[in-house]
């Protein structure tokens, strides 16, 4: 059977599964729609969190990104996993104990202020829309590459599926669909990785193959071989860094703290039955995420080695068949600059003085893996289904945050307090429907700045939610004046820095003009510090919070009701 046929079958089956789950788990109350009635098993929630968190970018782009930047790729590996330690130890159990539906709701009650809540709602909506646009685009791209439909139709199909299960099932539908999506995406990621690992090193476990010797070289370690290849072709050594230490430090911190502050991740821990389950569930979530995140750097090194040894200095006429297949998608291309018919792959300062002739898109490192390893056609189809699962699961989690922010935080709690539960549920569904439609629009007409605004999402989450929630739990004294001032200063500072270097004066976006050498990607860490400092200073000079807030904090700190 052809790849296309297999892809339609496997994608069709997974979609049927998601729809089946949505019908089985449709929500009938706001409690089910917002937090799946708090009845999700901690391990199931861990899987759902894994799918919720790992986006199209983690699945399709991350390994390729690492293979191009070598050791500095660790900012993503550490940055996007280390936040779960913060989440498990500092946030999840306490927010679960608080026991409500949304993150802005905690901010509003702890700081006894609708203003604080509205500021939090705006941050949540902005961060979530930033993200979701990229996911819908990812769905369209997978469709166009693997199923030969145009991107627009692909986005429409994706919107239709998400609309169905998010609007019908709310958090309950999304949770169980995400569990299924995690299983699809992890299998799709691991199978090609295992085979490539066997092919390159003879070790079936990619994490171990990463540190093993390369088959047929008489005991040369993979990474040593890769470093040697890099040097010979004029690239910096794979295992050496090129970014400055301070920038790596700040980017990693911004990604970690941003992760811990992202509302669609935090609310997943509202769905488990107990406080103890919230802690355990965070551990399982990171376990399931780490399976992919420890495979990715191994895949990056395998793919990089493969790419160099099978393509470099080979005659174009005898290029492998996967090269010809992927040339059509323009993800890989060759220009014969010196007219010798041989493909030269070179870095900037190649010792032999030759020019680079190969252009390779980072996404190809994951997408073409099954073909490079000569795996059967159904594995290629599985990778397509995995990419879709990663994109759809993340999109659904984000859309839920947007819809609950509107129906619960804005309508029910501030603008229309006398809504009945039935009306609120309807409002939540309508809001989810609108959010899906807007996300679909951005998927078809992506704003040119999608890539730039990812730094925004993490920077804003890091500089707004994280400090305020932490202080709300670990201090009884921090008051609403401090919190509001802290959030506004943190966001304004971070946004101003990013907007200046990304939009107003992109020409100046280089280490020489950054403050202390910190790039816009890492500035969220400074924004977070600004937030902490401003909150604490303003709190010192304004009245303390009322008595009942001190009790609220005391109560949040222990698992049982006091």
């Amino acid at each position, binding site marked *: 059977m052809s790849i296309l046929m297999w892809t339609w079958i496997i994608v069709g089956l997974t979609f049927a599964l998601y729809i089946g789950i949505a019908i089985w788990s449709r929500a009938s109350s706001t409690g089910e729609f917002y937090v799946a009635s708090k009845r999700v098993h901690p391990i199931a929630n861990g899987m759902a969190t894994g799918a919720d968190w790992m986006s199209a970018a983690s699945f399709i782009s991350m390994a390729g990104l*690492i293979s191009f930047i070598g*050791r500095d*790729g*660790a900012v993503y*590996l*550490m940055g996007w*996993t*280390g936040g*779960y*330690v913060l989440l*498990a*130890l*500092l946030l999840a*159990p306490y927010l679960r104990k608080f026991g409500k539906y949304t993150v802005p709701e905690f901010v509003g009650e702890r700081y006894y202020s609708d203003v604080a809540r509205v500021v939090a709602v705006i941050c949540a909506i902005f961060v979530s829309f930033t993200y979701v646009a990229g996911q819908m685009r990812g769905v369209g791209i997978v469709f166009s590459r693997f199923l030969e439909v145009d991107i627009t139709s692909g986005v429409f199909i994706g919107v239709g599926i998400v609309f169905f299960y998010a609007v019908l099932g709310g958090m309950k539908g999304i949770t169980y669909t995400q569990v299924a999506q995690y299983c699809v995406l992890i299998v799709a990621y691991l199978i090609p990785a295992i085979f490539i690992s066997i092919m390159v090193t003879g070790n079936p476990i990619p*994490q171990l193959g*990463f*540190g*093993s*010797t390369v088959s047929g070289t008489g005991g040369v*370690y*993979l*990474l*040593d071989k890769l470093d040697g290849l890099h040097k010979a072709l004029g690239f910096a050594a794979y*295992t*050496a*860094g090129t970014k400055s*230490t301070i920038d*790596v*430090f700040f980017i*990693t*911190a911004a990604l970690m703290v941003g992760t811990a502050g992202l509302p669609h991740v935090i609310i997943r821990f509202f769905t488990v039955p*107990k*406080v*103890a389950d919230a*802690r*355990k569930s*965070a*551990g399982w979530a*990171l*376990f399931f995420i*780490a399976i992919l*995140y*420890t495979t990715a*750097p191994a895949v990056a090194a395998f793919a990089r080695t493969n790419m160099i040894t099978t393509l470099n200095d080979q005659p174009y006429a005898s290029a492998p068949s996967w090269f010809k297949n992927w040339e059509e998608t323009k993800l890989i291309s060759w220009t014969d600059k010196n007219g010798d018919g041989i493909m030269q792959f070179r870095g900037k300062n190649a010792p032999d003085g030759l020019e680079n002739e190969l252009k390779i898109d980072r996404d190809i490192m994951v997408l073409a893996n099954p073909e490079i390893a000569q795996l059967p056609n159904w594995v290629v189809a599985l990778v397509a289904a995995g990419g879709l699962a990663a994109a759809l699961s993340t999109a659904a989690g984000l859309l839920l945050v947007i819809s609950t922010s509107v129906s619960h935080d804005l309508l029910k709690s501030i603008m229309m307090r006398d809504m009945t539960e039935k009306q609120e549920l309807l409002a939540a569904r309508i809001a989810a429907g609108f959010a899906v439609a807007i996300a679909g629009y951005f998927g078809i007409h992506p704003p040119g700045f999608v890539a730039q605004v990812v730094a925004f999402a993490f920077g804003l989450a890091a500089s707004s939610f994280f400090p305020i929630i932490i202080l709300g739990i670990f201090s009884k004294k921090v008051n609403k004046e401090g919190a509001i001032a802290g959030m506004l200063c943190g966001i304004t500072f971070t946004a101003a820095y990013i907007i200046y270097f990304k939009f107003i004066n992109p020409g100046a976006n280089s280490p020489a003009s950054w403050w202390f050498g910190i790039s816009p990607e890492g500035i969220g860490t400074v924004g977070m510090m600004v937030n902490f400092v401003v909150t604490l200073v303003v709190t010192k000079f304004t009245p303390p919070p009322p008595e009942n807030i001190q009790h609220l904090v*005391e109560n949040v*700190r*222990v*698992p*049982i009701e*006091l």
Partner: protein
Amino acid sequence: MSTQANLDAYWKTNLRYLTILLSIWFVVSYGCGILFVDALDKIHFFGFNLGFWFAQQGSEIIFVILIFVYVNLMNKLDQKHGVAEA
């Protein structure tokens, strides 16, 4: 057992656990993986330079272990202070 002294002791121990665990979290990622990565890279660990290993694989594995250690410590602490959920 929900006397103020008991709750204060519970919270104090919790904060001690957090301090220890987050110190390890900081040392393996920001320490071994970023600040001292070049020094550690001089040490070889199976097929890896040690600093590179912490940055790309070791930290992630240690993070998972840290959370499960925390889960166990807190479950015991909840029991000890009589604040575990039914």
